[in-house]
C-alpha cells in the first residue's frame, strides 16, 4: 500500500479544551466552540488571522468560522457523530499535504447537560431509525448502542462483572485527573447496583452528560517546531462508516467501521499494535473499549474483557487506556471524540494529569452514532 503523503507530514501544534468542563449554564454551544478555539489558538501562539482552514461537526462550520471572524480557504463539515473530529484530523492532514490550507482549526463544543443554544432533537419518521427502530422503544443511545452486548456476552461467555470492571478501571484513572467529573473510587458492586438504565447496562456503565468543548490546530510538520508546544505528529489515520441502525450492524461482536478505520491507520503509520504506548478508545458505554481493543487488533476476538480484568489497561499496566477517565468518568458532551484526541496529544506532549512514562505513540480511536462510524488517529512524538 502506498499513500500520497507519509507519516509525520502534519502535526498538531495547538490543543485545548474549554476553560471549564461539566455544567456551564452561562455559555451557549457556539460560545463554547469559540472558547475552545481561542484557547487552542493561544496554545499554538497564533491569532485567528493565522487560521486558514476550519472544521467542525454538530454545529455548522459556517457558524464557527463566522463567529470567530475567519474566512477560511478550506472547510470540512463532516458530521458522523462523536468521531467526526478524528475524521477532521484525517481530512486536515490530507488538505495540508495537498496545499489546500496551512493552518487548520478543528473545533468541538456541546451544551450536552445545560442545553444552552442547543438544538432540539426530533425524530424524522421517514428516516431509517424513524421507520425501523424508533417504534420499538429505542430511545437515546443507552437503549441502542448497548443492544449488541448480550450477543457478544453469549458468544464469548462473558459475565456482567467483566463489563462492570471497565467502569471500575476507568474510574481509577479519573481519580488522577482533577478535571474529571467523577473521581471517587467505585467497586464492581457499585457499578452493578447503580440504577438500571437498559438491562443489563446500569447508570455507571453509561457515559456522563456534560457541557464542554475542545479544539485542535494542525499545520505542516516542517513548521511544527516553530510553535511553543512540542508537536504531536500525525503518523496514521483511518475512517469508515457502517450503519445508521444498530439493528443492522453486521456482526454484533465486532464493528466493521472499527476494523476498517483501525487497519487503515496502522497501515499508514507503518506500525503494529506492539508499538503503541498509550491508547484512547471512545467509551460512550462500558463495552466499547472491549470492542475497540479487539477490532484494532490489540487482543484476539473475545479476549478484551479479560485483558482489562487482568489490569493491562489500568494504572501501571502494559497498555494504559482512557487515561483521562474516559467518557464514563471524565466528561462526555455528546460527541466525545475530541476529548480522546486531546488526551492523546497531552500524553505525547507529556502534560497529561495522569501522565504515562515515555509515550512515543498514542492511538485515539473514536466511534460515531451507534457503531455507525469510526475514526482512528495515531500520534507520535
Amino acid at each position, binding site marked *: 500500500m502506498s499513500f500520497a503523503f507519509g507519516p509525520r507530514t502534519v502535526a498538531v501544534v495547538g490543543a485545548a479544551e474549554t476553560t471549564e468542563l461539566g455544567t456551564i449554564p452561562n455559555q451557549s454551544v457556539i460560545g463554547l466552540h469559540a472558547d475552545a478555539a481561542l484557547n487552542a489558538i493561544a496554545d499554538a501562539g497564533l491569532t485567528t488571522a493565522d487560521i486558514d482552514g476550519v472544521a467542525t461537526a454538530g454545529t455548522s462550520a459556517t457558524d464557527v468560522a463566522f463567529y470567530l471572524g475567519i474566512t477560511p480557504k478550506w472547510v470540512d463539515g463532516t458530521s458522523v457523530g462523536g468521531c467526526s473530529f478524528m475524521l477532521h484530523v484525517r481530512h486536515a492532514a490530507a488538505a495540508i499535504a495537498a496545499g489546500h490550507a496551512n493552518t487548520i482549526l478543528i473545533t468541538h463544543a456541546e451544551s450536552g447537560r445545560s442545553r444552552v443554544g442547543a438544538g432540539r432533537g426530533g425524530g424524522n419518521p421517514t428516516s431509517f431509525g424513524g*421507520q425501523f*427502530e424508533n417504534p420499538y422503544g429505542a*430511545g437515546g443511545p443507552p*437503549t441502542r448502542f448497548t443492544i449488541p452486548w448480550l450477543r457478544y456476552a*453469549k458468544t464469548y461467555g462473558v459475565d456482567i462483572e467483566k463489563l462492570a470492571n471497565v467502569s471500575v478501571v476507568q474510574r481509577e484513572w479519573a481519580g488522577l485527573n482533577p478535571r474529571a467529573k467523577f473521581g471517587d473510587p467505585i467497586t464492581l458492586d457499585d457499578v452493578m447496583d447503580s440504577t438500571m438504565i437498559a*438491562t443489563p447496562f446500569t447508570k455507571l456503565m453509561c457515559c456522563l452528560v456534560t457541557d464542554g468543548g475542545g479544539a485542535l490546530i494542525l499545520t505542516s510538520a516542517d513548521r511544527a517546531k516553530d510553535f511553543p508546544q512540542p508537536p504531536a505528529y500525525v503518523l496514521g489515520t483511518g475512517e469508515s462508516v457502517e450503519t445508521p441502525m444498530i439493528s443492522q450492524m453486521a456482526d454484533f461482536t465486532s464493528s466493521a467501521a472499527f476494523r476498517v478505520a483501525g487497519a487503515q491507520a496502522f497501515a499508514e503509520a507503518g506500525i503494529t499494535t506492539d508499538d503503541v504506548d498509550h491508547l484512547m478508545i471512545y467509551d460512550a458505554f462500558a463495552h466499547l473499549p472491549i470492542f475497540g481493543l479487539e477490532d484494532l487488533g490489540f487482543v484476539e476476538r473475545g479476549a478484551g474483557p479479560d485483558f482489562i480484568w487482568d489490569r493491562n489497561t489500568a494504572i501501571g499496566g502494559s497498555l494504559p487506556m482512557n487515561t483521562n477517565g474516559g467518557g464514563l468518568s471524565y466528561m462526555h458532551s455528546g460527541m466525545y471524540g475530541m476529548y480522546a484526541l486531546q488526551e492523546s496529544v497531552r500524553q505525547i506532549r507529556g502534560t497529561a494529569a495522569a501522565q504515562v512514562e515515555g509515550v512515543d505513540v498514542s492511538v485515539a480511536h473514536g466511534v460515531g452514532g451507534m457503531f455507525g462510524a469510526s475514526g482512528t488517529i495515531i500520534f507520535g512524538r
Partner: protein
Amino acid sequence: MSSQQTDERPPRPLPQATPETQAFWDGTTRGELIIQRCDACAHAYFPPRPFCPECGGRSVSDEVASGRATLYSYVINQRPHASFDGPVAVAVVELAEGPRMMTNIIDTPQTEEALVLDMELDVVFEKQTDDISLPLFRPATTNEVAS
C-alpha cells in the same frame, strides 16, 4: 393482538413510509412480513430498498417471509417512551430467511429470565393506525424447531 397499548397512553413514535418502503408497510397492514430478495444473487435483505445491497443489482423481488425468527440480542429499556406500559425489551431478531430487524417481544415478561437469546419466535402484527401495523414477535407456539 397485543394489549401493550391502551387509550390512556400516547401512540408509539410511528413510522412514515417512503416510496421505497411503502410495500413493506402495506404488507404489515395486510398481515404479511415482506422482505426482499435479489433476483441475481439471491441475497435476502431488510430494510427495503429497490436494489440489492450485496451486489447492487436493480432487479429484486418482494417476498413474504415465513415470520419465524430467533432472538438475536436486546436490552430492556427501563424508561421507555410513554406509549409503553413499563420496561420494554428493545430487541433485534434474526428472521429464518437471514435478515435482522428491531422489534419487541410480546406475550412474555420483559425480563432477562424470560428473554433467552436464540429462543424461537413468531411474527404478529399490531395495528397502530389504518396505515401502520408494526411487526412484533412472540415466543413460538409450535414445537417446530428450525433445522
